[in-house]
């Protein structure tokens, strides 16, 4: 189980990963359905590090949409399902910072049962797993393009995962890393916030898009496909935006161009 060593900003203490230990892949529902390439790249990425990957087929969702909307009773049912499915696995890795934060930080709010809290604390975000747990910052990828990174707010502030995605990108052959101006600002997605306060969500997203264009990058990546769905949706609405490719960071970390 992962322990919180220090809060603000959060610093975690991870158990030691023993070589050959299987990792249960947690593929968040929207990634499974709308961004399957990110999940496939995650599998490939882990296998290249000689990490055996299993996919518990009964998994569905982490419960975050209902939790953030205030429907905790409904969220709890889904959280319990998640824990039943993932209980047998010591390591759970997911290609989404936001869903990881739901498990590791917020399961406790939904249900303080030690079993639930403990299982939630086994979940690790992909780039965090590579850098902080495996100690890998070079995945051997090659991607000769200009790339900028948007780190989701849950990844950044709830998990404190800030350096790992940057370190991984900087070691990709040929990749020119273009820092995103005002990178720490929220993109405005915020789950149901995007449709409950659409005007404000869009205004925030448009600022993010301006910064993506200002960065000079050809490709926008993130450890969170949910932010990308929102930012990418706005990019699609402009000429300059349509020229930007949008990808999950895992896809870059297995690229061989």
């Amino acid at each position, binding site marked *: 189980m992962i322990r919180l060593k220090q809060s603000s900003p959060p610093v975690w203490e991870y158990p030691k990963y023993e070589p050959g230990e299987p990792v249960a892949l947690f593929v968040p529902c929207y990634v499974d359905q709308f961004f399957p390439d990110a999940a496939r790249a995650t599998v490939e990425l882990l296998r290249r590090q000689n990490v055996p990957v299993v996919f518990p087929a009964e998994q569905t969702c982490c419960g975050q949409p209902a939790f953030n909307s205030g429907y905790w009773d*409904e969220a709890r049912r889904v959280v319990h399902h998640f824990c039943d499915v993932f209980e047998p696995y010591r390591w759970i890795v997911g290609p989404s910072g936001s869903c990881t934060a739901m498990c590791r930080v917020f399961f406790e709010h939904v249900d303080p049962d030690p079993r639930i809290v403990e299982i939630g604390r086994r979940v690790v975000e992909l780039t965090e797993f590579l850098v902080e747990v495996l100690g890998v910052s070079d995945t051997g990828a090659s991607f000769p393009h200009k790339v900028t990174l948007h780190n989701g707010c849950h990844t950044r502030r709830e998990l404190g995962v800030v350096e790992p995605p940057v370190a991984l990108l900087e070691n990709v052959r040929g990749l020119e890393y273009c820092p995103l101006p005002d990178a720490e600002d929220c993109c405005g997605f915020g789950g149901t916030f995007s449709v409950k306060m659409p005007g*404000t969500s869009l205004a925030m997203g448009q600022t993010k898009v301006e910064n993506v264009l200002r960065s000079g990058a050809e490709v926008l990546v993130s450890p969170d496909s949910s932010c990308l*769905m929102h930012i990418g949706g706005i990019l699609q609405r402009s000429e300059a935006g349509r020229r930007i490719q949008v990808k999950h960071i895992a896809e870059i970390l297995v690229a061989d161009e």
Partner: protein
Amino acid sequence: MNTDKHRSLEGAPFLKEKTPGLAEPTGSEALGQSCERSAKEVEALFAGIPQWQDWRQAAHQIKQYALANLDRLLVEFEQKLTAKGVEVLFAADAEEANRLVIDIAQQHNVRSVVKGKTMVSEEMELNHKLADVGIRALETDLGEYLVQLAGQRPTHIVTPALHLSAEDVGRLFAEKLDEPFTAEHRALTDIARRHLREEYLKADMGMSGVNFGVAETGSIVIIENEGNGGLSTSVPPLHVALMGIEKIIPRIDDLPVFLNLLGRSGTGQKLTTYTHVIHGPAPDRELVLIIIDNGRTNILADPHSRSALGCIRCGACLNHCPVYRRVGGWAYGWVYPGPIGSIITPQMVGFDKAAKLPFASSLCGACSDICPVKIDIPHQLVYLRKRGANEPSSVNSWVERLMWRSWAWAMGGSWRYRLAAMVARLGVRLARFLPWKPWYLGAWTRGRELPEVPGPAFRKTWKDKP
């Protein structure tokens, strides 16, 4: 500049059923830019202070201690003040507080009042109540003075006139004070100073808020930048101070950490220009302190939310909030806007009126990163969403409940999940062809494309080839 809009609470958007002001960016560009500039300055300032996190932790713990011992500390505070000749009164709500102020004013034949900044009086709508009984109350904090002249309400708790540009102020002075138009900052300040100075001398009563009440010494601490707080509290023969019950700190030694944090967090100053520590009335002067609950004990009673009462009203969470920067303060409909307002307002005025406020956040957490007393703002917002969804409130909806129930059922097992996913994928595919997009779908597609529906889901390909 619309001077009549947002004049009273009744005109506030969220107190009605809908919150169009929150859903749409309506704040002025000046406001957003000022907030962003201020936020960056504050971050840079704290980046150079290695003990910043220790200060925050200390401030948090002092406040939590004070809140946990509020019953005892308030009594200690009252006794210390009373012994020094200060009259201490308690008011359960805004109405009672207004009655106390009006009674005191009438007993002293007060015709005019000069006020230093006090957010509590905004809760009470005191200026209007005093006007109703023929007493003229004048705001002396420059920002408050401007919004009062304009017939508006503050848009920010520290910088109330953040939405007004220098040109706006010049036009306002020309219109209301009959001064020649200027947009030059120095000249504008001189005009305000000239008009305000006379008022201190004419006033029968001065009023102020309280930043900290020190229980150990019975001291009232007021910080400010313009000197107006000092003049309002010392020139007129009678000083009435308004204080929320949560402003107590236990000891005078606890004060420095808050002074270190408050100026820096609020305005990027190492220390505010003036720090007044009032130990009692000056000879031949009267000092009355009114300590007000007005919904604060609702927050105190909820252990999940109690730490929000530790707020020292620095305004940093407003400046750092991407939502506040875009919608402005009025959109939140009451006295306290921004992330902290979204937490305390529903609890102070009731979930029936303000349950929508906690939804005015993307939960990005920029606020809790900067909060000098470490209030876990985004976590509390989600918790208050839960309360809104479960208690009688303006967001409690059986339609949404049914939606989440169905969702929870679908997410309860693999085949149900696949069924729901099939519907979702089909929905997104078909949505492209809809000439008109209803409800949330329309909210999404207003400025965004829907995602492409890709080939088979990951789990399908895994099943075929693990």
